[in-house]
């Protein structure tokens, strides 16, 4: 139960971060992507701030793993996606994702934060996004992976975000 509670708090803080940064607004995100227009570099500051804190956490996590210790909660292993090569699914997936992101200005985090408050996202974008994920799960994602990659190896790594 504590793991569920801390995961909820983590999601809540992530969502509040997106709200504070105004990255829940597709117009704001598209302003960053519009490099050749009225460019708004705000998103770079969001990533910079997030990266600075996360990089420290990664160092601490790796130090704990090296010392044979695990999570702060119950000592379970801290799971990082396994390192892998650059392959076609990685690049092709990033191209498709970038295309959709550039068309609408929404990625999965802001889509979920908007789910409860923006009807167009809740009724149209989010269901389509989940359908796209399920489509992947039941087609190419179904194939057992043999090459090394972040989702290869243990099930624990599947979908860990890398």
């Amino acid at each position, binding site marked *: 139960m504590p793991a569920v509670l801390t995961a909820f708090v983590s999601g809540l803080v992530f969502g509040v971060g997106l709200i504070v940064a105004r990255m829940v607004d597709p117009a704001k995100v598209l302003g960053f992507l519009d490099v050749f227009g009225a460019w708004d570099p705000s998103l770079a500051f969001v990533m910079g701030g*997030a990266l600075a804190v996360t990089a420290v956490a990664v160092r601490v996590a790796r130090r704990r793993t090296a010392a044979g210790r695990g999570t702060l909660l119950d000592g379970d292993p801290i799971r990082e996606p396994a390192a892998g090569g650059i392959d076609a699914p990685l690049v092709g997936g990033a191209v498709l994702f970038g295309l959709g992101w550039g068309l609408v200005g929404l990625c999965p*985090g802001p889509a979920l934060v908007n789910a409860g408050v923006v009807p167009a996202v809740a009724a149209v974008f989010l269901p389509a996004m*989940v359908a796209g994920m399920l489509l992947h799960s039941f087609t190419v994602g179904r194939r057992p992976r043999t090459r090394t990659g972040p989702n290869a190896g243990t099930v624990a790594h599947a979908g860990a975000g890398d």
Partner: protein
Amino acid sequence: MESFTPWSALAGGLLIGLSAALLLLVNGRVAGISGILGSTFTAGRGDTAWRIAFLAGLVAAPLAYAAAGGTLPAVAVEASPVLLVAGGLLVGFGSRLGSGCTSGHGVCGLARLSRRSLVATVTFMATAAATVFVVRHLLGA
């Protein structure tokens, strides 16, 4: 440039980093939202509850923010319904195929100095910027 908001962007970014740090150090998990959501449908029994809890936290964030006295930013969804469906399908399918999205590759992956995440982040940023250029400046939408 009149809409540039560096301080709120930095503050929001620090909160996102705090969230990723919490999930990594306390739960032992990487905060990749497409992975957490996408794997909820296929994860084993013992691996589902924390995912749903994290996603519930994201959905609850506006309510908590407003309840704490914050003013929610205006959200302008300008894309047509057809474009929203196409964009949603592309974002969902692409993030799963590419093993991550803005959070998993762009924040957590880069913080881990992952070469895969660097390639993915540069690729989706460049593709998204090119898409906006075509839509706004070539098609003039």
